[in-house]
Each structure stands twice: as C-alpha cells, then as structure tokens.
C-alpha cells in the first residue's frame, strides 16, 4: 500500500462520511503505523537528550473522525496523528522544558494554549518535524493536566461539544472558572508570589470547584475524588 497525500485525503473523505468498514480501518491503521518509527525516534531524542519521561499515543479512530468533521480539515494536514505528552510540576518547569525542546527542534511550531486558551484548555503544544513527519508534543503542568482530565471526563460523559464551546452552560461555566483560577495561580508563580497562604487558598478553591464539576458530570451522584 502506497501513501500519497491524495490517497491519505481520500481515506479522510471516507472517514468523514463515517464509513468505517474493515478495509478502511486497515488503511487507517497502515497510515497511523507510518508514524511509529518517527514517533519513537522523537521519544528517544527527548528522553535521552532532555531526560524527560514522555508517553506516546497515536490518535484513536473516533478522535480522527471527530476532528475531520469538526475542523473540515484534510487527513494529511492533521498534525497530531502521533503525539507525546509530558506532565511537569509547574509553569516554571514548563517554560524551562519548552526552551530545552527548542534547542533540539529550533523550527518547532509553538501553539501556546496558555495565552490563547481553547475553551479553558491550557497547555503548550509543539509541532515537531522529524523525518518529514509532524509529531505533536504536549507539555502540561500538573494543574493544567488536572483541568484537562476533568474536562475530558465531562466531555466523555456529557458530550464532546463541551470541549469546543457548546454543551451544558453550568458545566462550561464551572470549567471556565476553574481554568481561570489555575491561570491566576500560575501567574502568581511566574510573578514570584508563591507562598504557603496563596497555595492553601488556591487548593481550597481547586478542590471545591473540582467537586462541583464532578457533581455536574455525574448529576449529583457521589463521586470519587479525594481531598
């Protein structure tokens, strides 16, 4: 099977029509597998040169179809078919890692979702080019990652439109307030106002909002988060 931009885009068109028969899944799998060697090379480079623990994933079929439908993009243009994720402790470490990755990949495209948030989602994404392929690296702080996980859970249960500005208003508002609280906390850290009182105040807000959001997600059922 030969992969050309045209054949990849034809595959994308059929996926967009929600045709997911077995031959098409075989073709999609072949396309995804074409990233494996490059993805592992990038992972090795990051781990060996920067001593960071990063996990890899290739985009799932439903996620690819959803993206094709949502963004009306071509399959060959999707930049996160294969990706890596790193979770660092805080925004200072995130900035430091960003600079270190840029020493390895100086031409990387930076998508800074901390300044241009995507409906509350905050992180730094880099599109790295290796062996003529695009690999996405997500760098999240622990707090940004907590928000992303809550948002993902909400989207799984209540509908993925939540991640793109639609869906239940009370849930969207609560997620937005939590994202803003995290941003404020991270701005404090950047400004050097990282004291125990700020940390304790923020933790209370974080836990309270998280509990509230879990309540909304599970419609008031008892949830399983610790304190």
């Amino acid at each position, binding site marked *: 099977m030969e992969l050309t931009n045209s054949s990849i885009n034809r595959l994308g068109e059929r996926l967009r029509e929600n045709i997911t028969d077995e031959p098409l899944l075989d073709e999609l799998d072949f396309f995804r597998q074409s990233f494996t060697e490059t993805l592992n090379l990038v992972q090795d480079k990051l781990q060996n040169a920067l001593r960071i*623990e990063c996990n890899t994933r290739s985009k799932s079929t439903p996620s690819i179809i959803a993206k094709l439908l949502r963004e009306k993009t071509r399959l060959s243009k999707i930049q996160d078919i294969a990706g890596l*994720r790193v*979770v660092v402790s805080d925004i200072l470490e995130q900035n430091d890692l960003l600079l270190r990755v840029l020493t390895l990949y100086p031409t990387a495209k930076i998508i800074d979702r901390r300044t241009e948030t995507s409906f509350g989602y905050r992180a730094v994404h880099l599109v790295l080019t290796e062996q003529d392929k695009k690999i996405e690296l997500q760098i999240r702080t622990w707090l940004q990652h*907590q928000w992303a996980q809550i948002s993902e859970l909400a989207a799984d249960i209540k509908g993925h439109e939540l991640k793109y500005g639609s869906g239940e208003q009370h849930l969207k508002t609560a997620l937005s307030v939590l994202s803003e609280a995290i941003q404020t906390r991270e701005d404090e850290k950047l400004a050097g106002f990282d004291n125990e009182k700020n940390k304790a105040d923020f933790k209370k807000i974080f836990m309270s909002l998280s509990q509230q959001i879990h309540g909304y997600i599970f419609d008031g059922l008892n949830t399983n988060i610790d304190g």
Partner: protein
Amino acid sequence: MIYVIHYDRCKSETKAFIEFSDTQRSNAMKERLKLEKMFNLGEACEEIVLLEALDLDVLKKTHGKYFNKTVTQAGQTHY
C-alpha cells in the same frame, strides 16, 4: 511498555487493558486493530487506544482517565 486499552467513554470505564513489551509492538498494533474492528464500528462510546510509556506509573500520570484517576488521586500533587 506498550498498552492497548478499550475504554467506554460514556460510562467512564476501562473494559480491557492489555500490556505488551517493547519488542511486541506489532502484536500490540494488531490487537488495537482487532479491537477497533470489533467495537468501533458505529459505536461512539467505544475508544481503543494504544499508548506507550516507560512503565505503568508514568502512564497513570499522563493518562489517568483510563485508571479512573481524575483529580489528585495519582501520586504527588503540585498546587
């Protein structure tokens, strides 16, 4: 290590979790494709993912939802 996970998004539940060594990559990919063919056809709730991590603890840190760990349950916190 390579992990193939079958996750039910609507129920927030991991239905299958299969672990492969780094040398079993092609087996892991075959397993993902097999599960996709079994479950993905027209089922919006079903998600089959293939993830790779140094070990399970690292995976739990970055992809906690597959372990039902969403907020502050997994390891160290960083407020």
